[in-house]
């Protein structure tokens, strides 16, 4: 039997979904069996209206974490303090269990590209990103999680693997990891590496969350589209990942071609079922409530 390495010191929320506008009414009306929700922070950095109303109504019933796409932690423009101020204000209002963004850059020279652009894997980038993460953590007053992105290019500048780079950044910055299993799969296909080599190199005690998502497979390359169900290959990778890390809060991302909510619940149940079969049940606590996460 595989020995399971439990990540006991990390908070565990169970199995979550992305909070998307298509499902606001469904969630408030039927209170689905979702352990927690992840919001896209930028969608709620607004003055008011429907998004904030639904967010706060759902926050009263579910744990929430905040996930951003515009921090540009690897960017070379100065950190956007207006953005960080809005992020902090939202966090003070939502009281999320944690805040995450991506290990990437999203803009340059005042322009925002609205994409998760990959960094070169070298010492300059490690030092640069780690220093900015520390600055952000000091400002927010808490550790943040950084997520690995899907990538389609490799820079000739890179002098190490993505997993060596990712590890070096989080160690030097003393931050946490949001490991996107689908992104590891997508990048492994696009860059011809073994995803388990990546998984086995990641520092276990820094991983606080998993993402699972669908992608589009074009045969000789794969695009991280979040508009399809999770494919079997990613489910298989998830099964291999769980024994390495133990119980990690797992969330399913869907951002386009939104299906009926019941389809996402089926995927969530599949993740739960895999978690139970690989790891067994997990007793957890949040908000003073004791529950069984699988």
């Amino acid at each position: 039997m595989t020995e399971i390495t439990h990540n006991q010191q990390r908070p565990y929320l169970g199995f979550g979904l992305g909070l998307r506008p298509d499902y606001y009414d469904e969630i408030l009306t039927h209170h689905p069996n979702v352990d927690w929700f992840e919001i896209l922070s930028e969608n709620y950095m607004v003055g008011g209206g429907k998004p904030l109303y639904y967010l706060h109504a759902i926050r009263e019933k579910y744990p929430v974490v905040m996930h951003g796409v515009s921090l540009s932690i690897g960017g070379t423009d100065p950190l956007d303090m207006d953005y960080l101020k809005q992020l902090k204000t939202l966090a003070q209002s939502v009281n999320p269990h944690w805040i995450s963004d991506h290990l990437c850059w999203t803009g340059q020279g005042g322009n925002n590209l609205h994409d998760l652009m990959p960094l070169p894997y070298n010492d300059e980038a490690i030092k640069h990103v780690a220093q900015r993460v520390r600055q952000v953590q000091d400002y927010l007053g808490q550790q943040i999680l950084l997520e690995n992105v899907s990538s389609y290019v490799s820079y000739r500048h890179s002098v190490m693997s993505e997993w060596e780079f990712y590890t070096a950044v989080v160690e030097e910055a003393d931050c946490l990891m949001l490991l996107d299993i689908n992104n590891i799969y997508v990048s492994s296909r696009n860059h011809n590496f073994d995803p388990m080599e990546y998984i086995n190199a990641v520092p276990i005690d820094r991983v606080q969350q998993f993402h699972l998502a669908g992608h589009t497979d074009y045969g000789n390359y794969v695009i991280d589209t979040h508009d399809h169900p999770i494919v079997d290959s990613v489910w298989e990778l998830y099964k291999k990942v769980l024994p390495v890390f133990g119980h990690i809060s797992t969330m399913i991302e869907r951002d386009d071609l939104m299906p009926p909510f019941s389809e996402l619940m089926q995927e969530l149940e599949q993740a739960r079922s895999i978690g139970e079969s690989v790891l067994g049940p997990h007793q957890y606590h949040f908000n003073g409530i004791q529950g069984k996460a699988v």
Partner: protein
Amino acid sequence: MIQHDSKLSTGPKSQDLGGKNLVNNGLSLSELQSQFKQYLMFQNGRIDEHIDSTEELSNDFRLAIYANAYCMRLVETLQKDFPAIFYLLGDDGFTQVALDYIKKHPSQHPSLRFFGQYFSEFLHQDTDYRAMPYLSELAQLEWLLVEAFNAKDVSLIQESDVANVPPEAWSTLVLHFHPSIHCFQYRWNIIPLWQAEQNQQTPPQPEKLDSEETCLVWRQNFMTLYRTLEPDEALVLGDVLEGADFSDMCASLSTLFSPDEVAMKAAGLLKSWVNAGLISDLSW
């Protein structure tokens, strides 16, 4: 099983690639990002020299994945915020307009929610589109609906609050409006053009109106709403949104109505604005 197991190989490692920075002439992180951005936004620069090709995928192909994603994400954002323009122009026509806009007004805000803020102005000024002035007006309507959707929440007053205004305060009474409220003037039949998309009907031919009209856009109970205003309401609402007090409002109305009618007309407008959720506070 993981797909393509047979093709898997180990990724680059530090011990294998030491000293590779020298090959790239010391291009800094900021220079690399600048080159990449230049490629995405203007299809030039030298980023391709810094990207590895493989047998399966060339560096050009790999870069094109990012270039395509950059454009399509911004086009889709405009498509969502300006559905009536998209409906009117069709897929190809809208994509061309959007790509022209993206080049002229690249995003400078962390949130995509602000990307379309110059679209109406662009359609008004650009030589390719200003011959179709209804596009700019329609874009203005659609953008104000987006603004109203995201506007700050404030509490609203009720009719009882108006009843409690002391008689001596009315002459200097100032109305404070909900932040979602915007009025704008238009000269083309943009309302039926917008409604055609909402109802998925064939859009009417764009036509110039006999006279300029005013549209009010606001949000009530999380619904974004609009209505065209009669000339008298357009006149006084424009004034009070600029800070005119109740006596100024009555003075404006006196240019349209007899002295006997002015007070009743002003009170009627105030009541309708309160009931429509337009007024957040009163001061005097």
